[in-house]
C-alpha cells in the first residue's frame, strides 16, 4: 500500500499546496498544458483508456461520458458536483480545502476536452467557507492566465464560477443540480434528453456533470498517462479512491488508498479497529445511507474495496463512505435514522417516493416504540420493494435499500421490538 502514489491528498505532505505558486512548483497545471498539446480527442481517449470511473457514486466511465458531448454545438458547460450530501461522505470538501487547484485544473482539462464555454462548481450551501476560499483560488488561476479569453494562446476561452446551494440533498442528483443552478426548484428532470444532449443540460446546452474527486484525478492521468494510472487498483476499478470512514472506529477520517485494498486493511490497519475495548464490528454501510448494509463478516472484511468485488457481496462501493457500527448498535435504529434522512430529502415529485418514505418512517417509528407487530416488518419490506424502479431519480431506490437490506441481514434486531404472531395469537388478537 505504501508505495502507491498519492494522487489527491498531496496536501498532507506539501505545505500550502492550496496556493497556486506552491501547486505550480509541484507540477501543477502541467497536465493542462499537456492537454492543450494533445487536443480534445487525445484527452478524451486518454481518460477513456485510464478507465477513470465517476466517484460521485454511480461509477460511470468518465471518458465515455465526455465523448457523448456533440462537437459542433457552440455553447457547452461543465457542472462540477460538489454537493456532497450523502450521509457519511466528507471527501470532496477535503480536496477543495487542501488541494483546490487540482480540482480547478481537472475541471479545466474536462472543459477543454469538450470545448466548454464555462464551468460552474455547485457546492452544497453549508460549504460557505469552502466556496469563498475556492473563489480566491479561481481568481489566482485567472490571474495566471488559465481562465478567460484565449487561454495560453490556444484560441479557446472559458470561465469558472462557484454556485452555492442552500440545503437540499436532492441537488446532488445531476438533473436536479442543473435545475437548481438555473434558479428553478431543485427537482430532477425527466430524461431523455440527458445532460450531455442538446436540450438536456444546463440552459438546455450539452453539459458534463462530474464529481469533485473524479475531476481531481484527471491532471495526474494526463501527466503520467493511462498506463501508469491502470497500474493502481484493478482492471475494472483503476486508480486510488478516497475512503471516508466514520462511526465506531478508533481513527475515523478520509484515507486515499488503491481500490484493491481490503476492508480489513482499511478498518484495522489504518483505522485502528473498533472504537471501544470489548466490542467488535457488527455492520457497515459502505456507501453512506444509500447503499445496501452488510454484516462485517470475515468474507466481507477480506474483500477488496472495488466495484466488482462489492457487487459480489450484494452491495456497492459507491462514494466509498463507510459508516461502521459495532455490536452495541440496534440495526432497527439504524434503519429509522436512514429512512428519516430520505423522508426529509425526498423532493416530493413522485408519489411512490413521497408516500413511501413517509409510511416507512411512520411504521419503523411504531416498531421502535414497541407498538409493532411481526407483520409490520413484512409490511415495510413490501412498501420498500414497491418503491423501486418507478421514479424519476434513484432517491426512492436509495430509500428502499436501508429497509430491505437491514431486515434481510438483521431480522432479529427487528423481531426484538415487535409482538410475534404467536404472542398475538396467545393474547387472542
Amino acid at each position: 500500500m505504501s508505495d502507491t502514489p498519492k494522487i489527491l491528498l498531496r496536501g498532507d505532505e506539501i505545505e500550502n499546496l492550496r496556493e497556486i505558486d506552491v501547486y505550480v512548483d509541484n507540477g501543477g497545471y502541467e497536465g493542462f498544458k499537456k492537454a492543450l498539446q494533445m487536443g480534445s480527442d487525445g484527452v478524451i481517449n486518454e481518460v477513456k483508456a485510464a478507465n477513470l470511473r465517476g466517484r460521485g457514486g454511480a461509477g460511470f466511465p468518465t471518458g465515455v461520458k465526455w465523448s457523448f458531448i456533440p462537437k459542433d454545438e457552440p455553447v457547452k458547460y461543465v457542472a462540477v458536483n460538489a454537493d456532497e450530501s450523502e450521509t457519511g461522505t466528507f471527501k470532496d470538501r477535503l480536496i477543495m480545502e487542501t488541494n483546490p487547484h487540482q480540482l480547478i485544473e481537472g475541471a479545466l482539462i474536462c472543459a477543454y476536452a469538450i470545448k466548454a464555454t464555462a464551468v460552474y462548481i455547485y457546492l452544497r450551501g453549508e460549504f460557505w467557507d469552502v466556496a469563498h476560499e475556492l473563489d480566491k483560488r479561481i481568481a489566482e488561476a485567472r490571474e495566471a492566465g488559465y481562465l478567460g479569453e484565449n487561454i495560453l494562446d490556444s484560441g479557446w476561452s472559458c470561465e469558472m464560477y462557484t454556485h452555492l446551494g442552500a440545503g437540499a440533498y436532492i441537488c446532488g442528483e445531476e438533473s436536479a443540480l442543473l435545475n437548481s443552478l438555473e434558479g428553478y426548484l431543485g427537482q430532477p428532470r425527466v430524461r431523455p434528453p440527458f445532460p450531455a444532449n442538446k436540450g438536456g443540460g444546463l440552459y438546455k446546452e450539452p453539459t458534463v456533470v462530474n464529481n469533485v474527486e473524479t475531476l481531481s484525478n484527471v491532471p495526474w492521468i494526463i501527466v503520467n498517462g493511462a498506463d501508469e494510472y491502470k497500474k493502481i487498483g484493478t482492471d475494472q476499478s483503476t486508480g486510488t479512491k478516497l475512503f471516508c470512514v466514520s462511526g465506531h472506529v478508533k481513527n475515523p477520517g478520509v484515507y486515499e488508498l488503491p481500490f484493491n485494498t481490503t476492508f480489513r486493511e482499511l478498518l484495522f490497519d489504518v483505522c485502528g479497529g473498533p472504537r471501544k475495548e470489548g466490542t467488535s464490528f457488527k455492520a457497515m454501510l459502505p456507501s453512506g445511507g444509500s447503499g445496501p448494509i452488510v454484516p462485517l463478516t470475515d468474507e466481507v472484511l477480506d474483500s477488496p474495496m472495488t466495484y466488482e468485488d462489492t457487487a459480489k457481496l450484494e452491495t456497492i462501493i459507491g462514494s466509498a463512505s463507510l459508516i461502521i457500527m459495532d455490536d452495541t448498535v440496534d440495526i432497527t435504529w439504524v434503519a429509522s435514522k436512514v429512512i428519516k434522512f430520505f423522508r426529509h430529502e425526498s423532493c416530493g415529485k413522485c408519489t411512490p417516493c413521497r408516500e413511501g418514505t413517509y409510511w416507512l418512517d411512520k411504521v419503523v417509528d411504531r416498531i421502535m416504540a414497541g407498538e409493532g407487530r411481526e407483520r409490520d416488518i413484512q409490511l415495510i419490506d413490501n412498501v420498500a420493494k414497491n418503491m423501486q424502479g418507478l421514479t424519476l431519480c434513484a432517491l426512492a431506490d436509495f430509500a428502499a435499500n436501508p429497509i430491505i437490506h437491514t431486515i434481510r441481514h438483521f431480522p432479529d434486531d427487528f423481531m426484538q421490538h415487535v409482538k410475534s404472531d404467536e404472542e398475538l395469537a396467545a393474547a387472542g388478537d
Partner: protein
Amino acid sequence: MALKDKYADRIQHHLSKYPETRSAVMPLLYIAQEEYGYINDEGVAEVAEILDMDPTQVRSIAGFYTMYSEKPKGKYWLQVCTDLACALNGADQFHKDLKEYLGVEEAGTSEDGLFTVEHVMCLAACDKAPMLQCNFHYMENLDMEKMKAWIEEKRAEYQAELDKANQ
C-alpha cells in the same frame, strides 16, 4: 436602503456569472437573508424585482431549501447534525443536552434571543462528531463542556455590548 443599492456590487457580480438572470435567485436570497435576518416579504419582493421574477416563485425557491430561514433566528443559529454517523458518536445526546442547557425546544430560541437550536442532516464532517454549524461556519469535535464555555463567552460579549450601549 434597498438591497439593490446597498449590495449593488455583490448583486452585479452574481448577475454577471450567469447567462440567465434567474440563476442569481439563490445568491440574492442569501443577501436578502443577511440583510433582514430571515426571508421576509420585503426581501422576496426586492429579489423578485431585481430578477424580473414573480414573487411567488421566489418565495417557493426560498421554501424549498432549508438554509433560507422563514422565521427570525437567534444571533447564533446552531444546527446540530444528528444524522447516522454523528449519532453513532453521541450526537443525539449532545443535541438534547444543548437544548436543555439553553432551555429551548427544537428550533426554539433562548430567552435572551441569542441562540436558536435545531437538528439537521449530514453536514459532511462525520469524522468530527458531535459537530454543528453556527451561522454557516463549522464547529467540530464538540462536547457540552466546550459548548457551555462558548455559550457563556457569547453571553458575556453580548452583555458587554449592552452595557456599552447603555453608558
